[in-house]
């Protein structure tokens, strides 16, 4: 019974890894409660978006998590210099 967290872009540096398995909990708040405070601050930053199983979530409180769910944290996409 687990969740998969995916950290994109600079959030990978904040997490120290691109992906992490965590025990299943029901809410995002409970996921955050189990993570390092610095990482939580980075994930909560303005403009970081969350996708659950590839679908963007508007409200962090909304989803009820299930076994095997993939939570992807998406910082703003990079601009192009070209």
């Amino acid at each position, binding site marked *: 019974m687990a969740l998969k967290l995916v950290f*994109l872009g600079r959030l990978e540096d904040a997490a120290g890894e691109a992906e992490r398995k965590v025990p299943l909990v029901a809410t995002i708040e409970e996921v955050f409660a189990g993570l390092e405070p610095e990482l939580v601050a980075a994930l909560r930053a303005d403009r970081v978006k969350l996708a659950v199983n*590839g679908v*963007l979530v508007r409200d962090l409180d909304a989803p009820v998590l299930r076994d095997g769910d993939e939570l*992807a944290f*998406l910082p703003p996409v*990079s*601009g*192009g210099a070209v």
Partner: protein
Amino acid sequence: MSGVTNSVDVRLVTTAFDPAREIAQFTAAHPAAGGVVSFTGQVREDSQAGGVEALELRHYGPLTLPEMEKLAATVLGRWDLEGLLVIHRSGTMQPGEPIVLVAGASRHRRDAFAAVDFAMDHLKSESWFWKREKVGGRWRWIEPRHEDFEDIRRWQ
């Protein structure tokens, strides 16, 4: 409005591709188009010290290609095109390597120019790619730039 004969080809690739070959095939595939506009973006070679040694683009599988396909559908609905080609790299690239190719074929060239320009603006600022550059042996993530949002605002 898009006709029935138009075609769309959207690819997310993780190895090098040859833009000239793709443009040639795309042009040959659209003989009824009077004109083909293409944009090729490549990793800049910087002769000065402090230039980019390598570039890495990361994508997120469940979102990146599906959103590129949605963008292509938007472009096809907005301009009268015979065909649209979008190829975007992911992975690590060296200076001189192509990153992105967008090509549009149309009966009247204004459609192809606007379609490719629009697609590039939206690929650059809205598509799900995270980029880091290696400079002086160290990797750093690239943040969004103000100009990217200005580019997009032109179309609203």
